């Protein structure tokens, strides 16, 4: 009782309640909030546009000089007179390393995720989960050093000679696995990339696998499905969109990864059929040459950057398109 009177007293003391004033204060708050969020959203577009414009401005001299031939010229001779520069070597290296990396990382990453969510005993789940997360937390320079000092020599003495011997003389495969073994090669870079992007695929897949309603899985087990059949026919179809999202995120990282790759790819602009030969990627080429470049050379490196930007954009766009198609198909 006493409390109630107190509140009434206070309300009276505050004077007559001004409804219009209170409402306009709300409106002002709403408008401010609306504009703050809107500006934040627009700033993303401005930054993106600014980056594209400055890349185009920087790359313009090279575009004017080489035109589309830049895309299929393999020579990279910045000191020639006039400089002959082409993007084929770095583009080839970028695509090949990312492709091999995904070839390794997707099955392994999904395997880990399926094991963790469907098969793993409870006590093992946390250690493996934490290990995968730690893998994601290792800075890329550490991967580069490890690849350079440990993985490179190891592969050059064990894996590479074996593969070279097995496929020696076999058409096509013999050219892909041609010698000599090398500490620094496209394959080594791809393997490091695979390890680096593995956590992305695994972590996202684990998260989306957990969203599968238990009732679906239990129903499948109920009618006698094996674990493989449950994963194949229930879990994967249900979570397809999420898994592909994770894979695309991983691919995006693989395409742009710089430091670790620069360490172990060998920075050579020649294109070789062998994946055990040194090569270069777009980002590695920019990282190792930008500081000492000028004029057309620098402009060409910026153009390479623009190409990487476009390449990544197309990969993401293709992923979106694929998802849309899948959803449509599933809808029918």
């Amino acid at each position: 009782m006493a409390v109630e009177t107190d509140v009434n007293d206070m309300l009276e003391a505050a004077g007559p309640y001004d409804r219009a004033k209170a409402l306009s204060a709300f409106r002002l708050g709403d408008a401010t909030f609306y504009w703050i969020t809107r500006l934040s959203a627009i700033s993303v577009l401005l930054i993106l546009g600014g980056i594209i414009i400055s890349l185009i401005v920087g790359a313009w001299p090279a575009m004017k000089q080489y035109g589309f031939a830049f895309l299929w010229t393999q020579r990279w001779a910045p000191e020639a007179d006039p400089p002959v520069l082409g993007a084929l070597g770095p583009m080839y290296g970028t695509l090949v390393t990312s492709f091999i990396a995904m070839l390794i990382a997707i099955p392994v990453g999904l395997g880990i995720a399926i094991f963790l969510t469907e098969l793993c005993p409870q006590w093992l789940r946390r250690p493996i989960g934490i290990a995968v997360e730690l893998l994601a937390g290792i800075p890329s320079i550490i991967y580069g050093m490890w690849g350079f000092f440990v993985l490179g020599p190891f592969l050059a003495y064990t894996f590479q000679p074996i593969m070279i011997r097995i496929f020696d003389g076999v058409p096509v495969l013999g050219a892909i696995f041609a010698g000599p073994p090398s500490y620094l090669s496209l394959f080594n870079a791809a393997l490091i990339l695979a390890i680096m992007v593995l956590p992305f695929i695994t972590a996202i897949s684990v998260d989306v696998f957990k969203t599968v309603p238990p009732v679906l899985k239990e129903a499948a087990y109920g009618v006698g499905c094996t674990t493989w059949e449950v994963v194949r026919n229930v879990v994967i179809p249900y979570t397809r969109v999420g898994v592909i999202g994770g894979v695309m995120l991983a691919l995006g990282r693989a395409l742009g990864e710089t430091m670790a790759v620069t360490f172990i790819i060998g920075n050579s602009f020649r294109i070789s059929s062998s994946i055990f030969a040194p090569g270069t990627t777009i980002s590695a080429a920019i990282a190792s040459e930008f500081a000492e470049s000028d004029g057309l050379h620098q402009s060409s490196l910026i153009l390479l950057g623009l190409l990487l930007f476009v390449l990544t954009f197309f990969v993401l766009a293709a992923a979106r398109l694929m998802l849309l198609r899948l959803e449509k198909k599933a809808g029918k």
Partner: protein
Amino acid sequence: MNFVKAIVAAGLVAASTSAYAADITGAGSTFIYPVLSKWADSYKKDSGSGVNYQSIGSGAGIKQVQAKTVTFGATDMPLKVEQLEKDGLAQWPMIMGAIVPVVNIEGVKAGDLVLDGPTLGEIYLGKITKWDDPAIKKLNPNAKLPSAAISVVHRADGSGTTFNFTNYLSKVSPDWKSKVGEGTAVEWPAGVGAKGNEGVSANVGQTQNSIGYVEYAYAKQNKLTYTGLVNKAGKAIQPTNDAFQAAASNADWSHAPGYYLILTDQPGDKSWPIVASTFILMHKDATDKAASQEALKFFKFSFEKGDKMAEELDYIPMPDAVVKQIEKTWSSEIKS
């Protein structure tokens, strides 16, 4: 009022001391960095002013001094006189040093192997691919060489060391001259690229059956296996201080306009064939004249007191007569 005065006074003191302690700024060549940082250390003890030198590479050093973001630039590739005049820059050689081929072959110790210019060119052209190639065997009849593929290491970044190395190969191998030529970043026909003298050292130290080229101090510090070279006189020479001095003594600085002189493939029985110099670039009419005078004081100190430090690191100091001439250049060209 006293309080305000005290603050103003304190501010003035702070401003004047910070101006006094302002560092001399420079950027460029990684080749000169080991000795320059030693000079800077002892100059700081001597005079109190420090030197802030970024070893970002010759090309970048030239760009920074042109853009006036640093007081001096250092480059291993001298600028031509026309370029110097266009940019209003003064140029002089600061130190000389040697570039040596380094290898990593099991059982081969430093100095065991001897190469000549054309063979080195063929290796870097990717034409000689195995260590037991007849051309290498002919130069080293007693060495035990494996039948292993040569893993060629070169610089991935633009570099003054590369300029001097390819300049040498162009002089001794017509094939190299027509196919690749000279420059700070050439179109390498073979091998893997590594960043900086440090990167090449690490790569060669790490990779079996590899060959690379580095500034001598890097080979020594990293305990790499250097090779001997056959010089212009046809003599096989080991990379020693005497051999470097012999090559440097040929240099006729007094008749080179703008000190434009490249010291590869010098005559003389005892000359090491790949000797390089690092050049300092400064604006003749600098915006901050006090800073450029400070920098000149540092260089004067280095010329006077730095010879021993340079020799400890196996650089070759500039001869006294040349130093006198350089000091004359300073007073006539750089406005105070």
